[in-house]
């Protein structure tokens, strides 16, 4: 699996005290790992810093609330990894 996923998984494991081996690419941050909104802010801070990006959490949340996206599209870790990769690529272009 990608190094992006590994970085995210390590952040989640350390921030939320979740056993690293239980964090899989298919894991849903909220539904499977039980991460709440406050914990996710801690994770977002760490991810923003690690990758030098600013995850557009509010935009993602709005899209979910408006029914334009599912939570899985953003919070299943393999999907989250892809979105982070895209943000990093956009930053570099």
């Amino acid at each position, binding site marked *: 699996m990608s190094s992006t996923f590994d970085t995210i998984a390590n952040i989640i494991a350390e921030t939320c005290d979740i056993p690293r081996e239980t964090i899989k690419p298919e894991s849903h941050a909220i539904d499977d790992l039980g991460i709440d909104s*406050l914990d996710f*802010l*801690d994770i*977002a*801070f760490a991810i*923003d*810093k690690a990758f030098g990006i*600013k*995850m*557009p*959490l*509010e*935009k993602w*949340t709005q899209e979910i609330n408006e029914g334009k996206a599912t939570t899985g599209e953003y919070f299943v870790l393999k999907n989250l990894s892809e979105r982070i990769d895209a943000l990093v690529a956009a930053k570099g272009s």
Partner: protein
Amino acid sequence: MRLEQFQLIDRVVEFDAGNKSIRCDATVPLKASIFDGHFPGYPLMPGVLLLESMAQTSGWAILMTLKFERMAFLAAVREAKFRSFVSPGAKLEMSAKIVHEGSGFAVTEAQGKLDNKPVCDATLMFRVIEFPNPEVRRSMLEFAAAGGLSVEFADND
């Protein structure tokens, strides 16, 4: 400070927009009912109120940076240290710097000093959301203006 009104800073002294940092004055009152219990015969400013003073200082940094378009609410204390006792009458110099602006959140590093010596510091996380109502925003603007801060970018509402 006006402890009964939970106003833990007196005045915003300086805001550095480029550095996203702020300095505030905060004088601990000589008398307050909280000192009756904290502690009898040995009044001390409670650490949790020093934390609130750092949070309010940080909040002003966020408000100013966002030009009063959004409100900051304390969400988490990542680490806080209280390095020395603070007595009634102490004239504190509070400062804070935004170290990260995320989407819907911000992280600050804040500090309190007495006679140029650190007495407390903390890393704080805030949720940043729309003002709950116009009155809250108006009261924030009034406080800033009373301290001499430039608020010409604020809309009238």
